[in-house]
């Protein structure tokens, strides 16, 4: 077991290259300048921004509104970003680099909101609350990716699994009129696809990107086929029982945090539960060590008596399970009925969140929250009567994904043996 852990320990010591350090700093400085020049300089000194701090339709954990002087707030945000950027260029933050760019991004987003809502009122708590909800499929998608990739299998078919699960959940949930059975149906359909992925990638050693694409195309076609053949003619098949809001006693009464985190539906709590289980299981248990060793150095793991093939199947199946929950969220936790192509790239954004979060559950959660927030801004700002076309707001999560990938990848944190079929000698 020591060899395996040494291999894993060895990989964690990774520095940040000088050009990357400088580029990050320059980006942070640019963010600071953008906040000042684009937002602060165009806001007059007397304007106030009003943020409502309780989501609509909730009567637990109320909080008073925030009223901020727009220009002052924006200037402070700009200064924070500039200071972080300067320090990054001169000294560098080392392992805190990702966190710091995160803070700058948050400053930019918050600054943008302050500027957009100047002289107006914006329900910030409502936005955060819907951000948490929107983060659910992305974060769960990232967890699904982590489970497969830590065992050495690239799973780009999370999108397809989610789509299939969302339909299966809707149909089973409608027929049985039971949301729990719907969830189970979604999970089973997704595990079925995961098994196909596993057999293709592990047994037949098909290139994992291609076997993932097979599943994505299959899901897109199959869900559209069933939807047009059955669901559209028979509304009773597409009207599932949903998981409703479930305020957690006590916790839901905390101001601001209560309504946002603890007055949500089951899927939000499942997301936090899986986060804790995954973080502990991966890094504190023998099971997690074995899974990771198979993804890092399958040969060494095999030498030590770990069944590489079995472990990889387990990783893929668990990946399917989590993707199934993420898919069921769309129909049982959010929209309430199946629509063709309703996952809208969330599975792929989940993969980006996984990379952004360094294949760590906690990091993936943070990244997922960021993407969810970017998504929430779009829908809320169009209500404010923003001058920015809604299509551009809708591009934000995709753009952020690309920037994140460009900025954070290539540091050697991906499981070393992912994508390579294992052949026993």
């Amino acid at each position, binding site marked *: 077991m020591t060899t395996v852990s040494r291999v894993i320990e060895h990989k964690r010591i990774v520095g940040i290259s000088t050009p990357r350090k400088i580029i990050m700093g320059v980006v942070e400085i640019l963010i600071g300048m953008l906040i000042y020049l684009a937002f602060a300089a165009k806001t007059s000194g007397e304007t106030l921004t009003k943020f409502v701090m309780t989501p609509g339709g909730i009567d637990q954990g109320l909080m008073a509104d925030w009223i901020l002087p727009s220009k002052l707030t924006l200037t402070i945000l700009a200064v924070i970003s500039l200071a972080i950027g300067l320090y990054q260029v001169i000294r560098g933050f080392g392992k805190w680099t990702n966190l710091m760019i995160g803070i700058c991004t948050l400053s930019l987003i918050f600054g943008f909101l302050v500027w957009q809502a100047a002289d107006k009122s914006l329900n910030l708590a409502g936005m955060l609350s819907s951000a948490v909800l929107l983060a659910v499929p992305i974060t769960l998608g990232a967890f699904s990716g982590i489970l497969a990739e830590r065992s050495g299998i690239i799973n780009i078919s999370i999108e397809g699994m989610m789509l299939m699960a969302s339909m299966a959940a809707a149909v089973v949930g409608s027929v049985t009129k039971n949301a729990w059975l719907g969830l189970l149906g979604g999970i089973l359909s997704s595990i079925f696809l995961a098994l196909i992925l596993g057999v*293709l990638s592990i047994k037949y050693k098909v290139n994992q990107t291609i076997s993932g694409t097979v599943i994505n195309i299959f899901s897109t076609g199959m869900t559209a086929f069933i939807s047009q053949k059955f669901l559209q003619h028979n509304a009773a098949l597409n009207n599932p029982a949903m998981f409703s809001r479930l305020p957690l006693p006590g916790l839901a009464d905390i101001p601001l945090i209560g309504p946002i985190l603890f007055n949500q539906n089951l899927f939000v709590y499942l997301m936090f539960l899986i986060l804790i289980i995954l973080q502990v299981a991966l890094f504190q248990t023998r099971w997690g060590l074995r899974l990771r060793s198979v993804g890092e150095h399958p040969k060494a793991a095999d030498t030590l008596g770990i069944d590489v093939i079995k472990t990889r199947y387990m990783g893929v199946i668990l990946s399917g399970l989590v993707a199934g929950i993420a898919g069921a969220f769309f129909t049982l936790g959010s929209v309430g009925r199946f629509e063709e192509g309703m996952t809208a790239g969330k599975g*792929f954004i989940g993969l980006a969140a996984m990379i952004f979060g360094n294949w760590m559950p906690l990091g993936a959660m943070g990244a997922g929250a960021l993407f969810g927030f970017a998504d929430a801004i779009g829908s809320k700002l169009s209500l404010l009567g923003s001058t920015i076309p809604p299509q551009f707001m809708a591009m934000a999560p995709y753009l952020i*994904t690309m920037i994140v*990938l*460009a*900025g954070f990848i*290539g540091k050697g944190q991906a499981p070393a043996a992912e994508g390579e079929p294992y052949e026993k000698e």
Partner: protein
Amino acid sequence: MTEKKKDLGQEILNEINQDQSETEPAKKPFLGKAAIPLLAILTGLIIGALLIALTSQSVYAAFGESIGKGFSQAFSEIGTAYKALFTGAIGDPVRMFNAVGSGDSKEIRQAFNPFLESLVQSTPYIFAGLAVALGFRSGLFNIGVEGQLFIGAACATFVGYSITGLPAWIHMPLAFLAGALGGAFWGFIPGFLKAKTGGHEVINTIMMNWIAFRLTEWLLSGPMTRPESGGMPISPIIEKSAEIPQFFPSPIRFHLGFFIALAVAYVIWWVLFKTTWGLNLRTVGTNPRAARYAGLSTTKSIMLAMSLSGALAGMAGAVQILAVNRSMALGLSSGYGFDSIALALIGNTHPVGVVLASILFGTLRNGATRMMVVSSIPIDIVDVIQAIILMFVAAPAIIRSIYRLRKPKQEEEQIFLSGWGGQS
């Protein structure tokens, strides 16, 4: 020390030369290569037939009466559906025969229209399939063909309607070129990101797809909208001089674009297999490490390959606008970009194979439209069949075990696709 270096150089040279000899098409028998795709297609169609039977309520009702009735009902439904697929795709043989006999030119054209329409449907597939195949050949997985196609179409549309008074022999090529350039630009961005930062092209091209959809949505409902459309996201109609000509009077849509596609396929084949640049590209694709030792610039070839792949995708969009639709709307593509992945793989990422696979899928999709009308089977069944065919082509061992084929002596060419971290 120096000796060792020399050895390494020699080894790399050997490896590169070997790569070249391996891809020499003449060495393998034709059917041997085509056996797997053909059997995969057959199996895909059989599974499609099963799907038709399994999702039909009348089949279940007939099985409720007796097993024999159930089977006969299932076969008759499959028969009706696939007959509609065939007549919709190729034409009604009896009518075609009679038409040729009667000698009426209008009747002949109409009888053969399903076949011609299949070629019309194949045209964008050829461009898009070539785009993906070119990417695969250089070790890149371009899932962004759909987005590149939309941007290409938007550029071609813009040049097509905004410039007036040009003669057709300038305007039409110009609009087509604009489409290619737009697609090339959309492909260049993920190529650049891959080469310079290692951001994986699979995610980046998918993100670029969504950005392209939103961008065209905005363009068509804003700057490029048709003034009299009343808020509908649709572009103005292109000028007559920008149109790619159709050969026959309406409703037959067979157009010059089909032959442009064949010509482009030839050019791609020539570039890939007859030029040094193509050899470099394929070397980077099959063995990036050897390529780097040999002094080939992987960054440059990644960017070039993605741009070229994007350009081909852009042509697919341009040809649809200039030859068929004549104006741009959001429902431009029926998923050409995703279908093309299957096409490229079924065609073994070889231009000739891609053209054949594209014609097959254009035919299938054209026939499926009629099948939808006749037996109300959703057209998306083509996607399901496609995924199954792709699965069998990617895992030939399954097909071999079903049909008891022997394993080939020569190892199959493997497409090289990298993990998230890039190879740098």
